[in-house]
């Protein structure tokens, strides 16, 4: 198994954010975690990226334990994360973002190598061109349209060269067309780079169109795994989304 998560538990004060979450992900597989706000998705991502250490349980990437490692080490092992709030560096230009991502890939973030790094303009422009962001190259990130910010962030992670991509609500705030473009982008990234991708999302249209296996979380637990149709048919899941009333 590429990513193995076993019985992760985490609580803050009296709130049990994760109450024993386990799941698996194959190499080059896309899975989507859905669940209402506050179900523990973000805590899970924080543990998988080294921002938080779990109270108990483990996570392994390709046989290496990643739970409990500091964030930059986890990143170097090949986990890239896209944050829920558009994760761009507000006063940097798009090209600077790409330089940071490419430098992180080529140097593993090691300082001495950064000093000598000469990845350069050509690689940056090529990346931007593939993602269709060339027009925005010189713009400051805080001034970008919302959707472009999201795409820029994903592109950074791709350029950074992760083996596993964690996407936290990648289409939040996007138009339907932008959402579709993002789905295409995710599919293409997956196909071309063989990256495994774990998505958190609660936009069901997105989930349906991405058509991948789903993991449904609720109140810190995995309540269901399966395909879109299986999950949609599950009364418990419908309850989580539409309230008891419709169950």
């Amino acid at each position, binding site marked *: 198994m590429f990513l193995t998560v076993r019985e992760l538990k985490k609580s803050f004060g009296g709130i049990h954010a994760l109450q024993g979450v386990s799941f698996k992900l194959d190499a080059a597989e896309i899975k989507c975690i859905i669940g209402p706000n506050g179900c523990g998705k973000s805590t899970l991502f924080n543990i998988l990226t080294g921002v938080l250490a779990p109270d108990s349980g483990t996570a392994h990437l390709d046989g290496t334990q990643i739970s409990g490692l500091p964030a930059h080490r986890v990143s170097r092992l090949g986990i890239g994360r896209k944050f829920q709030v558009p994760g761009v560096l507000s006063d940097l230009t798009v090209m600077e973002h790409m330089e940071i991502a490419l430098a992180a890939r080529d140097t*593993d*973030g090691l300082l001495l190598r950064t000093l000598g790094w000469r990845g350069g303009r050509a690689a940056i422009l090529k990346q931007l061109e593939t993602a269709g962001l060339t027009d925005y190259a010189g713009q400051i990130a805080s001034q970008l349209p919302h959707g472009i910010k999201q795409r820029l962030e994903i592109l950074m992670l791709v350029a950074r060269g992760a083996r596993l991509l964690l996407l936290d609500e990648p289409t939040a705030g996007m138009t339907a067309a932008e959402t579709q473009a993002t789905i295409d982008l995710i599919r293409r990234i997956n196909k071309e780079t063989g990256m495994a991708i774990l998505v958190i999302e609660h936009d069901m249209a997105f989930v349906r169109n991405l058509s991948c296996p789903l993991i449904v979380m609720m109140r810190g637990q995995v309540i269901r795994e399966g395909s879109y149709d299986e999950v949609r048919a599950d009364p418990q899941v419908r309850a989580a989304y539409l309230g008891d009333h419709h169950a």
Partner: protein
Amino acid sequence: MSYRLLLTLAIWLVLGLMPLALGSWELAMFGQLLVYGIAAASLAFIWGEVGLVCFGQALFFGTGAYVMALTSKGMIPGIPDSAWLGLVLGIIGGALAAAILGGLLFFGVGLRSAYFGIVTIAAAVIGERLATNWRYIGGFNGLLDVPPLPLPGGTDSADPLMGYLLVLSFAFLSWLLLLALQRAPFGTVLRGIRCDERRMLSLGFSVPVYKLVALAVSGGVAGLAGALFAIQFSFVSPAVIGLALSTEILIWAAVGGKAVLMAAFIGALGVKWVEGALSESIGAYWLLVIGLAFVAVIVIFPHGLLGRLLDTGLPKRLRRP
């Protein structure tokens, strides 16, 4: 080449040609002011790139000055009394002081930037107290009779022209170094850290190490400025290590432009010059005027007086295609 870069280069050219136009008094004065310019630029580097408001800059400056004075006076056991060696050791000393401070503050539970400022204030005061109490390095009065730097051709830095050219060359070299770092991918990473440390961590950059190295580089340049101070002013004392100088350096950089090396550099020269002129012309009122003028600059020009004018922008490789 942007007109801003041209302007910056023109300033260097003018500074380089000044000896043709100026008498020995102006050269001697500028030879002293340029030292402060280097210190201001060293602060602008970490303030602008990493966003650290550092009240400890004088600590690095002072370490450089003391190391220089002790070495050239032959007061460090086992180290020959060479002024040039002192210069090198001064740079290393400043960098080391910065690295130690950074090592204490950046790792583990990180400090928010306002706290960083206050903690460095306390560190500057402690540095000043230690220097005052350490008899070997001269205590409160400090060390006097620091010899000038011998230069090829039998002259030394005590000569106004030679002193000026010496400090100017080091100022130019420091500027080149800091600018090169700003414009290298390393600088881009630092700016990324300024925007969002968490995200840079998640991209695989060990943020504390980068901050530490940036602070050490800044400290090294400040140490160089301190070493040059020792030979230009021929003395060192706790006054070059404490809070008063730290605050002054912040002021110079803020008035000139805290994020732009050249603006901060000129800011130091300008503020010192205006201070001198005001203290001669309006007597006791000069501090009042300086204080209020300074408040006005901070309120009205968040980027400093020259920040926008001298911002050389991004390197060519990062310009829009």
